[in-house]
């Protein structure tokens, strides 16, 4: 520890070698944001039956962006009814025609991707660099990929003529609002289901904008319905008796309560829940690449990633060298205005999430772990958290066991591959893992032993619509992406 301290003192106090001029994206590119929004039901924007409205704020400025409706049970009823009504014709449509609708949507998303990227960045707080270069390309790719399945379902390996499940209730989180929408809606529509989707209460704007895209694409009314609101709306939706399938991405606790709620109902259920991924670095790993992978693993999207590499397991013999390189790299991360194209780390999505990160990091210190964050100026308004690492973390610490969902890395060490596996698997979660080593046989051995739905070897946080994603153990069940992702929406 003493040695680490000395290393730290030698680090540059303020990171960048060069100052960058601001390169701001224009907020106007987001298009007009209305002052208030209702739901999108049966192909129309409609007012809520209730009077309660929520506000969505720009987490970087705390400015209110718009009001939107808190969906009532009556709203849920209307939306499910619209989806049910549309189901007959939509599921009867030849797959080749359903495919064309999905291709149209994919194309319109590409055409409007700048608008959507800016809007997403404003509503979510994530850097424009990520919405523009990661989220939006992925959203379009997801619709393209599943569009192609719509007329090939007989060949997907679920037997001839697999049937859609019916009306799908989809509840998605705030970390990747539009990408999660794409992950849910694209396979559901390709397989002939109709959907009622509820975006998170802090990030409803891009889902509502997506409703406009559905209209531009001429999608039959009722095939996609968007209702807004908080957890109460979500619970009413997943509990609705005329829903045949529930898909949820979010916290393990909510997933658990949905599973309990659905017990005995025979509704099909898929869950993508929390994670506490180990990113394991062996002594033969290329240090610079591993450092990039660690940074990408935990600081991508402010650490608001369920598969984030939030536990660094570093082989003891290279701990000092690796941590020094990591700290040096972290000092160059730019935290600030999400609309600045140079920004690496944007705003924390909400005050509530910032409070949770603050609480857990305080627990980390209280339990004896050592905290380090680079010096950097944070804007005065908005929700911000410096990229932070904890060293001297033991497996029993809360910061090694609980999902923080923020830019906070816990560093643990190991000596042997067996110990790395044991520590990596020592969590109730099992969503993802990373392995860094030059030794191919060890990669394959580690990949085999790690209890995780995705294993990234010498890379991290890679996604692709052709590639199944989902967890083991309490990270949920079912897979999204690839041929496997069709199963959740087929009656098999």
């Amino acid at each position, binding site marked *: 520890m003493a040695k680490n301290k000395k290393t730290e003192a030698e680090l540059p106090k303020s990171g960048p070698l060069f100052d960058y001029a601001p390169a701001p994206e224009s907020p106007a590119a987001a298009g007009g944001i209305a002052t208030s929004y209702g739901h999108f039901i049966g192909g129309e924007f409609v007012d809520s039956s209730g009077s309660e409205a929520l506000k969505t704020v720009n987490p970087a400025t705390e400015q209110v962006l718009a009001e939107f409706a808190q969906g009532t049970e009556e709203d849920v009823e209307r939306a499910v009814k619209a989806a049910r009504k549309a189901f007959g014709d939509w599921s009867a449509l030849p797959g080749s025609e359903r495919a064309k609708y999905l291709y149209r949507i994919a194309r319109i998303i590409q055409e409007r991707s700048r608008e959507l990227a800016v809007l997403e960045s404003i509503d979510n707080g994530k850097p424009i660099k990520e919405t523009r270069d990661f989220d939006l390309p992925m959203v379009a790719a997801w619709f393209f990929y599943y569009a192609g399945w719509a007329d090939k379902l007989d060949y997907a390996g679920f037997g001839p003529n697999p049937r859609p499940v019916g009306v799908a209730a989809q509840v998605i989180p705030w970390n990747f609002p539009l990408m999660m929408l794409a992950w849910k809606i694209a396979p559901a529509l390709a397989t002939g289901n109709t959907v009622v989707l509820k975006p998170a209460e802090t990030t409803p704007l891009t889902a509502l904008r997506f409703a406009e895209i559905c209209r531009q694409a001429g999608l039959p009314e009722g095939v996609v319905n968007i209702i807004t609101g908080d957890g109460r709306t979500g619970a009413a939706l997943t509990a609705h008796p005329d829903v045949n399938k529930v898909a949820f991405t979010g916290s393990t606790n909510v997933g658990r309560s949905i599973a309990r709620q659905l017990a005995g109902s025979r509704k099909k259920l898929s869950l993508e829940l929390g994670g506490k991924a180990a990113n394991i670095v062996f002594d033969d790993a290329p240090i610079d690449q591993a450092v990039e992978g660690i940074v990408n693993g935990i600081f991508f999207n402010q650490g608001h990633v369920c598969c984030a590499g939030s536990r660094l397991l570093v082989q003891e013999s290279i701990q000092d060298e690796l941590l020094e390189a990591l700290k040096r790299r972290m000092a160059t991360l730019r935290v600030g205005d999400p609309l600045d194209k140079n920004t690496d780390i944007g705003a924390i999505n909400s005050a509530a999430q910032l409070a949770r990160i603050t609480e857990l990091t305080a627990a980390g210190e209280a339990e004896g772990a050592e905290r380090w964050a680079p010096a950097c100026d944070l804007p005065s308004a908005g929700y911000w958290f410096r990229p932070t690492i904890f060293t001297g973390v033991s497996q029993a610490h809360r910061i090694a066991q609980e999902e923080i969902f923020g830019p906070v890395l816990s560093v643990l060490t190991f000596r042997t591959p067996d110990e790395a596996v044991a520590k990596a698997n020592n969590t109730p979660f099992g969503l993802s893992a990373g392995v860094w080593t030059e030794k191919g046989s060890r990669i394959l051995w580690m*990949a085999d032993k790690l209890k995780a739905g995705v294993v990234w070897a010498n890379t991290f946080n890679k996604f692709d619509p052709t590639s199944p994603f989902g967890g083991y153990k309490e990270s949920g069940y079912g897979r999204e992406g690839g041929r496997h992702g069709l199963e959740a929406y087929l009656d098999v």
Partner: protein
Amino acid sequence: MSDIATRLDVFKTYKLFVGGKFPRSESGRVYEVTTATSAAGAAGKGQWLANAPLGTRKDTRDAVLAARAAVKGWSGTTAYNRGQVLYRVAEMLQGRREQFAAEVAAAEGLGAKKSAALVEQAIDRWVWYAGWTDKVAQIAGAANPVAGPYFNLSVPEPTGVVGIVAPQTGYGHSFLGLVSVIAPAIATGNTVVVAAAEDAPLPALSLGEVLATSDVPGGVVNIISGRTADLAPTLASHQDVNALDLTGAIAADGAGAAAVLEAAAADTLKRVLRPAVDPSAQDWTTAPGVERLLSFLETKTVWHPMGQ
């Protein structure tokens, strides 16, 4: 002359099958197993067959421990080897088919011909699943053509410990049904704890004797007899059970039981295979398909960069 027989039959003491051994229940208790009432005539009470161990929650937890201990070895064995082990079970059953036919006849109230046919089908089903061990990865795995320079594979892996509520009804449930739920789960590398059919546990307990003399490692299959209402909730709520097969849950103790068990399983986010809508209408002689093989698998996707 007295009517005392010149030779007295030797009764069998049925025991649990846990960790490859045959313990009595820790309860020290047994319950009466009788022939199916249909065999004794419409009005008749079933005829006493044997006393089965009255397994408890503790027995179930012990079995889960044994099953967990066996996961590493069994899931780590090659698919080729697992296939041979499953085939070996079929071989061993072949030699004892008359015993099983008699037990099935008594358990389900069937004639000799039907029960013999059911046992033969059960043997064939082991053979069928033996062939699946080294093929399931080829139908459930994938090489994913991602848009980037990455080598990307999805492979199926066993879920871990599967708790099974054995079929309680349906044609052929007592043995063919039992085999139909155990074999696919272990073919893919899981280990299982089975709560045997409450009213007809004897074929299940005898299967333990066959498994012990096959090459199935101890702990891979564990069989408990007793009251389903005691055993199933322990399986459903146990932290170290990864998946739950509720096939026999409805018939065991009322229509609501499966829902209650599913809700208990939600606490640990177990994978749940729900029972058929009408389990009593189930005919275990029909072709099983691959649903059960795929139900207790996870998909792991591995990414690696490609480059020079």
